[in-house]
């Protein structure tokens, strides 16, 4: 029995090592743009990717920075989109060549009606399909895609967690030798949208906004009119300024800018009370709540933030 185990071990060690590790990641490019990247180690190379990309809040609104067409030494990448190829690309019957790759609408995003595909742009999830064709077709071809690069970039509507997974129905990650299964790791990312530029830098209160940690609530449509909790009262009145907002003011009453418990959303007028106390939340903030008490969205301008 011992000899048999030894023989198996020798056979296993002597065989060729076929293993490809594929890491798919995403990174925040700023302004809601997320780069979808890959890194391949080992062989064989990746022939195609079919990935689902989803966000837990908001929507994926655009895709960009993807390679289109055949991979060449001067322009490497995964530019063949299997799901959309037959819809958009014309192949010359006589020459067998693609007439043009520059076709409007030819993107890696699979159509929502394709089996297993997610909702597409404008929804919380897209399926991308990206393959590579090159000549000579071997992995060591000078025209083959690089082992590390960016597949594409997507634009998301708001701060969200981006998740990436293989779409098995559409093929997942396929290697140039389809008999070998890739070891694929997918790592999502948390993307923050809005902090950089949602509050106009030419406002006199911009420095206060920065000092308070760039609160998103200052950029919402009704906060400067008293919507401190950034929501309505719900069924049935939908008051924009009501008890929830007043409660936020009460909780933060007379707090100063250096108070770590200060909720900056309570600072309705975006100013302190001046010398000598410099309370961030004081009578002028309360006065706005009282002035707009029980108003709905229809009764408010909805144009916050406004110049002070």
């Amino acid at each position, binding site marked *: 029995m011992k000899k048999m185990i030894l023989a198996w071990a020798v056979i296993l060690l002597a065989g060729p090592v076929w293993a490809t590790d594929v890491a798919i990641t995403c990174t925040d490019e700023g302004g809601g743009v997320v780069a979808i990247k890959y890194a391949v180690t080992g062989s064989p190379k990746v022939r195609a990717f079919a990935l689902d990309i989803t966000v837990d809040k908001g929507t994926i609104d655009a895709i960009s920075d993807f390679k289109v067409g055949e991979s060449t030494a001067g322009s490497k990448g995964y530019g063949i989109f299997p799901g959309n190829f037959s819809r958009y690309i014309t192949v010359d019957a006589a020459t067998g060549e693609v007439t043009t790759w520059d076709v409007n609408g030819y993107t890696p995003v699979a159509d929502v009606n394709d089996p297993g595909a997610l909702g597409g742009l404008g929804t919380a999830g897209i399926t991308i399909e990206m393959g590579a064709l090159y000549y000579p077709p071997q992995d060591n071809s000078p025209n083959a895609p690089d082992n590390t690069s960016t597949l594409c970039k997507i634009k998301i509507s708001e701060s969200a967690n981006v998740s990436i997974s293989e779409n098995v129905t559409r093929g997942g990650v396929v290697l140039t030798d389809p008999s070998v299964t890739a070891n694929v790791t997918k790592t999502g990312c948390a993307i923050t949208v809005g902090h950089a530029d949602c509050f106009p830098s030419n406002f006199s209160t911009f420095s206060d906004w920065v000092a308070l940690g760039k609160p998103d609530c200052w950029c919402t449509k009704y906060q400067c009119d008293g919507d401190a909790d950034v929501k309505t*009262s*719900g069924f*049935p*009145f939908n008051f924009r300024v009501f008890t929830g907002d*007043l409660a936020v003011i*009460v909780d933060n*009453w007379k707090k100063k800018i250096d108070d770590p418990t200060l909720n900056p959303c309570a600072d309705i007028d975006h100013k302190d009370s001046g010398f000598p106390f410099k309370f961030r939340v004081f009578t002028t903030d309360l006065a706005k709540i009282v002035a707009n*008490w029980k108003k709905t969205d229809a009764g408010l301008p909805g144009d916050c933030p406004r110049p002070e």
Partner: protein
Amino acid sequence: MKNLLVMLTALAMATAANAALTINVNEAMDTITITGDGATLPPVAVYLFVEGPGSITGSNIVYPGSLAAYNELEAVAATLGMSPADTLASFKDFTGKPALSDLSFIILADGAIPPAPLTGTLVGNITLSGTGPVVLTLVSDDFATVFDTKHVPIPEPATFALLGIGGLLLRRRK
């Protein structure tokens, strides 16, 4: 009858033991007050729901907060731009209370800081009338907190009549 009332009062007190805002019904079962023990802080907005054959009218806001208000069903309907019947139907659907027969919307808020606490009598003189047992519920405007529930056994007219006859018989026996 007194024993029954004492028992009902004891039951009501047991129900309200942990409530920060409490519904109180007088012995005659024709007047409601709402009181607070200070545990819940202002501002709050609450609904007082009536389920069963009864209704509530009139009020006297005792809470001194400048933003305090008592809105009967008609006022709620006016704010929503709907008829009282449609408003009630809408609330029945939303709350899942098909026996809902009347409601009021009470705001206990103050435009001064610190606000007056929610202690003692907050709303008084709400008149309760009806022809049979009702359930009163005091619930926050986000429907997340039920402050108090009271089962009020308003006797039906037939029961009143029976009680009257019984009283006469007792007198004759004496």
